[in-house]
């Protein structure tokens, strides 16, 4: 292992989303939101969701964290927009499986496949999953809640 794996982790797409995170904004009319924290490294973010029936009409985030957590959150917001709750749940599970090294059909992930390098870095899996757990908590609740990964 050496630089080759680092390039797998820090792929161009990840670096790009870290530098210019998409949907990085507060959402005034969100009807679901949750705070996510990783106290170990100080990552902290808020995920905002606007649901229209069972369709995710809009999703955004704010906060600070490492390149992996910011890029993962940014990619997530892109992937979820327009998805139904069922589709979002399926994607959440696929991402989770991907990070923990379970076999999944890559086609299920699309662009999110760039996150697959993370599974070679066990200490970083929580960075990549923080936004997904936070989004999940936001959808599960109709009030502001907090999740913590450590």
């Amino acid at each position, binding site marked *: *292992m*050496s*630089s080759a*794996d*680092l390039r797998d*982790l*820090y792929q161009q797409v990840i*670096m790009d989303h870290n530098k210019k995170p998409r949907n990085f904004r507060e959402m005034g009319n969100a009807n679901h939101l949750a705070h996510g924290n990783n106290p*170990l*490294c*100080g*990552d*902290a973010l808020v995920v905002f969701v606007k649901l229209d029936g069972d369709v995710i009409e809009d999703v955004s985030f704010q906060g*600070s*964290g*490492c*390149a*992996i957590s910011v890029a993962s959150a940014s990619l997530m917001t892109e992937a979820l927009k327009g998805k139904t709750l069922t589709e979002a749940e399926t994607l959440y599970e696929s991402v989770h499986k991907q990070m923990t090294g379970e076999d999944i059909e890559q086609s299920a992930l699309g662009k999110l496949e760039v996150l697959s390098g993370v599974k070679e*870095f066990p*200490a*970083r899996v929580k*960075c990549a999953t923080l936004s997904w757990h936070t989004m999940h908590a936001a959808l599960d609740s109709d009030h502001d809640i907090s999740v913590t990964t450590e």
Partner: protein
Amino acid sequence: MSKLDLHTIRTDFPILDQQVNGYPLVYLDNAATSQKPIQVIDAVANYYRKDNANVHRGVHRLSQRATDAYEGAREKVRGFVNVRSDKEIIFVRGATEAINLVAQSFVRPQIQAGDEILISHMEHHANIVPWQMLCEQTGAQLKVIPMTKVGELDLSNFDDLLTTKTKIMAIGHVSNALGTINPVKEMIVKAHAKNIPVLVDGAQAVPHMVVDVQDLDCDFYVFSGHKMFAPTGIGALFGKQELLEEMPPWQGGGDMILSVSFEHTQYNELPYKFEAGTPNISGAIGMGAAIDYMQNLGIANLAQHEHDLLITATEKVSAIEGVRIIGTAKEKASVLSFMIEGVHPHDVGTIFDQQGVAIRTGHHCAQPVMQFYGIPATARASFAFYNTMDEIDDLVAGIKKVQELFA
């Protein structure tokens, strides 16, 4: 130039001789925990091979040998920080337990709602949380000595913080997050002038400098074995005898009693009054061996080499554009905390690890320090006497690699 034979020293530390991710291990996380020389590992192993028995209770030979070794270790700890009497050295699990002991056994019985406990903004959580808990239990107030941008204590209003209500001042000797060496001796003089007892948290100091508690005249001094080349789970509390005598026991159990009946228990003498239950015998023996090891090399020599490492690392790292050193106090020991512009410390840590370089990234259990600088975390390289100048170059190469990747 270093008076140390680093080649021989490094062969004493078997863990250093390994590859990590295809590179020779460069261990720069000594402020989190230090590595252990073979002399310490052997002392612990030999105790279990030859002498293992319970202490202070058996007439048989093994128990006598175990007791001698355990008490011999106490004597070494006593000498290590120049304590007057063995009675003043209590073996504990580490600095954290020692602080909790002093909080609950010394301060709690004499503190009331409205009284004050004085700490500093630079403390790590072990010297914050036990006092906060005590404040919650009693209604006392936590007061905090502020710090300056360079990472030194701001003592401009220090006299005002020492009040008639202050029941203890608890202060770190060396900051684990910044490396700042605090002027504890002068602070103790001022506190004592107002009859305020002082606890000094020396966890980060004893591995890096000669400490003399009689010279400091502190009332309590605490430290952990694992940061000074000894095993985890052992540490020491120094307390002035007259204070320890007055304090109630901290935990009850065997070893801390002279006699027990259901009507009355008579507590043991110092230091055993504070050592309930079978102690960490092997840990204490390992701590004694670590002290022997450091003293054989000469603690002043070790300190000089580490100082050279820190000066060189500071020069080389601060010369790199886009890198900011966090904590630039005049007096520092062992620690170089830094930020690389545009890169989160967690990413820095991963990239370093891929090159075999172990550093700490995070808040270093000192979140108020991070809040002071408005940052979530830092990357921290921390040195021990077995580190080499070549390893400073590896640190510099690691930073450049991060910048290249994140360019």
